[in-house]
């Protein structure tokens, strides 16, 4: 087991007071805190790869953390592509790596 990345006793900010819930990522069952952004719950589980680049296939993850850069797109069952840094985690969410957006220039439509 790797050391958790959660900061449990922050010297100035205290504790996070949130309920532990379950969700899945690429089919794997994981735990996170209710209401924290999906990207945060994944990071706390040491998961950084959120999607693959449309053309090169290289791994991409969270970059700005506040909704500006659009790098952290993941696929949320029932919702489609969402920004993982802004979307609050809920019990039972089924999340997958972001799918590839179509390319209007090359004409590629697959995902």
């Amino acid at each position, binding site marked *: 087991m790797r050391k958790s*990345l*959660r900061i449990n006793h*922050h010297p100035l900010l205290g504790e996070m007071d949130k309920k532990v819930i379950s969700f899945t990522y690429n089919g794997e069952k994981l735990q996170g805190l209710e209401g924290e*952004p999906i990207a945060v719950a994944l*990071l706390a589980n040491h998961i*950084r790869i959120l999607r693959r680049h449309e053309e090169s296939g290289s791994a991409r993850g969270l970059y700005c*953390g506040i909704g*500006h850069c659009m790098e952290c797109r993941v696929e949320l069952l029932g919702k489609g592509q969402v920004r993982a840094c*802004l979307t609050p985690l809920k019990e039972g969410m089924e999340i997958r790596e972001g799918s590839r957006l179509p390319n209007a220039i090359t004409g590629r439509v697959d995902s």
Partner: protein
Amino acid sequence: MSEVQQTDLLIVGAGPAGLSAAATISADRDFRVMVIDEFPEPGGRLLGQFHEERNHSWWIGKIVAADLIIQNTLAGVMIQCGVSVYGLELLPDGWRVLTSKGDIRTKYLLLATGAAEVPMPISGWTLPGVMSIGAAQVMANVHQVKPGERGYIVGVNVLSLAIAKELVVAGIEIEGIALPPDDLFAMEETNPVAAIELLTRLSDAAPAPWMRWGGKLAQKMKLSRLIASCFPKKGVKVWDLPLQLRTALVSIQGVDQVESVIVADVTRSGEIIEGSQREIEVDFVAIAGGLYPLAELAALAGCPFLYVSELGGNIPVHNERLKTTLPNLYVAGNITGVEGAQVAMAQGRLAAHSISYDAGWFACEEEPKLLDAIAEVKEVRRSAMIQFHPEIDSARKRIYELFEHWM
């Protein structure tokens, strides 16, 4: 939310500027005020900030935000989170605002969208585990999850030092704070001399005593070159931070995520010294390229802009009362130029008085409040702990002059 919502004042952005404006105006008048924000909770960038004040007490942004939210709740302001604004349209009697949850019609519109970070395309920067310095701050301080166990910071500026300090407080190891490589196009602080010049302007917020007392002197006597030459290659500890002004982060390595960085020594003008490259294991890298005003919505609305480097970028033209050149459209906070949260709060209060004044009720009663609010912004700016740019006053005057010229 399919039917169109109606309000008298819509504020986009629930950061310190937007929340202060809402609390001020609704505390004063019977007037429908709505605040929307795309982040899941209100507070904006306040939520991630804390710093030590001159009297050694801690200023904690989360607490300031909680207080503003209570004021708003008591005043009956509606705050809606998780709503993104993507379009604006001028109507004969106000604005139509297009959001991810439907349209909103409002008479007055205040844009308080804050700032965003300038990225730096260093080799390897798209690897998962590389993030902006602000993202590292948000992970550690807002969500209380470490961005990683051990990281490197690239970019030496006010924000990178302040956040590095916060990361250390949270128990995260910082291996070094280094310069970006000098072949990176058009970055301001890529060489040791420029970085020291920047640091010596920080006065009170300077991270080391020698900078605080030496700062003004060094600036006056142009000592930056000398300091850059004497700066030890292995760096110095300031605020317990490993500040490496003679080191550049050359590239970030890893297969599917960050595994290490390559750093190298640089000459005082920033050229890499061949043979000094070395690899250091880390699991995250934070890029600190500085902040710029997030003003896309003002551009969509049709505001004219002026590029002002001292304020961080392109600024929608506005006057000292925070009115733009378009009808019923106001701006407050970092969208008007990058400064700290206390200035944003004072600007929010000023925007509220400006809108009340323009709404036309009790103008004779409003005018002195408006003038007081203008004076207060200046006073807060003057005494701010963290100054992002020098020469802010004269830069702002240029914008106000352009406003007069435009109108």
